[in-house]
């Protein structure tokens, strides 16, 4: 998945199972492994019987799309490639090729039968990574946490350093950060990044650099962080309407929505 996985509070046997889980997910869902099921599905198009694991992740991705009103869309593989992210991130080099634009594709899931519209390519990386964190946490028998590239879920309290400085204590649930400061590259002289705006089919022009959200699970936090990033100025209110704490970093300034402030700012206790 192109990220470091940190696990705390696990036995050697549980660590092996966590490692096996991430290796399995990478083998099935990598966009950069020719033999992955994701690449076979994308190449074949049309209707296809997929594995139970694949169907489960597509179902989670469709839930994300429904919950975010189409912002977090699993069918943005083609626009991502058109923006130049067509190989492993570490192999990307600046290119003079013009940036293409492509619209979200069409997708339907009937049990384990997946139907992709013509030209549709799936990118399930975000959902798969966050779900792997949540499922890895369930493999731990006691308190601990699992973090994959900075997206984490915990059982028990853990202090977490935040982008741009500062820290917060995650008491329960998950914390995820989405943004454009790390996975970015140059194409036709313009900076590109991996968070595609489904409305334009191009990397989002959001004013945020990084958005951190706390959710009941790592998957919820990751999906909400991506949606809040893509919504730009409306992101903080969108999170507040759902009671989700969010922290936004942009132009060197930090903005916390009301739910975040209510969670982390010290409050005076009323004495009666």
């Amino acid at each position: 998945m192109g990220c470091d996985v940190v696990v705390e509070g696990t036995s050697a046997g549980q660590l092996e199972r966590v490692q096996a889980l991430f290796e399995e997910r990478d083998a099935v869902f990598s966009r950069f492994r020719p033999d992955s099921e994701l690449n076979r599905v994308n190449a074949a198009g049309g209707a296809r019987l997929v594995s139970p694991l694949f169907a489960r992740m597509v179902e989670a991705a469709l839930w994300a799309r429904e919950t975010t009103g189409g912002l977090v869309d699993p069918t943005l593989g083609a626009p991502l490639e058109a923006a130049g992210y067509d190989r492993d991130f570490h192999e990307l080099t600046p290119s003079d090729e013009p940036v293409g634009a492509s619209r979200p594709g069409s997708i339907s899931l009937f049990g384990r039968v997946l139907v992709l519209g013509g030209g549709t390519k799936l990118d399930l990386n975000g959902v798969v990574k966050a779900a792997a964190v949540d499922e890895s946490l369930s493999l731990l028998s006691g308190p601990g946490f699992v973090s994959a590239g900075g997206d984490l879920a915990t059982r028990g309290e853990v202090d977490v350093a935040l982008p741009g400085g500062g820290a917060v204590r995650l008491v329960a649930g998950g914390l995820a950060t989405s943004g454009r400061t790390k996975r970015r590259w140059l194409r036709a002289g313009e900076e590109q990044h991996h968070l595609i705006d489904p409305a334009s089919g191009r990397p989002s022009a959001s004013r945020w650099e990084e958005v951190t959200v706390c959710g009941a699970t790592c998957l919820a936090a990751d999906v909400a962080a991506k949606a809040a990033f893509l919504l730009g100025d409306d992101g903080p209110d969108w999170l507040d309407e759902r009671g989700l704490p969010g922290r936004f970093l942009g132009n060197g300034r930090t903005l916390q929505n009301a739910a975040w402030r209510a969670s982390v700012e010290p409050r005076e206790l009323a004495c009666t």
Partner: protein
Amino acid sequence: MERAAETRIVAARRRAATAKLVLGGIGAVAFVASAALARAAYPGHHKRAVEALSPPRSFVSIVRRNQLESGILAPTQGDPSVVTKQT
């Protein structure tokens, strides 16, 4: 003489065909009746059409909506042991 014998043979064939029809009918009725009795009386038999063990649609939609609920944050109380960052 021969004609009378032929008539008896035809009549016998007709009686045999009728008997076969009646016996077949009785057999079919008996089969259906015993199947119905088995359905009604055998303890392990389905009394109603089998339905998938799936929760009601309204319940599923509530659960899906709740998946986007918040976790719990608090002010930090020590040195961070992990960092959240964009990957």
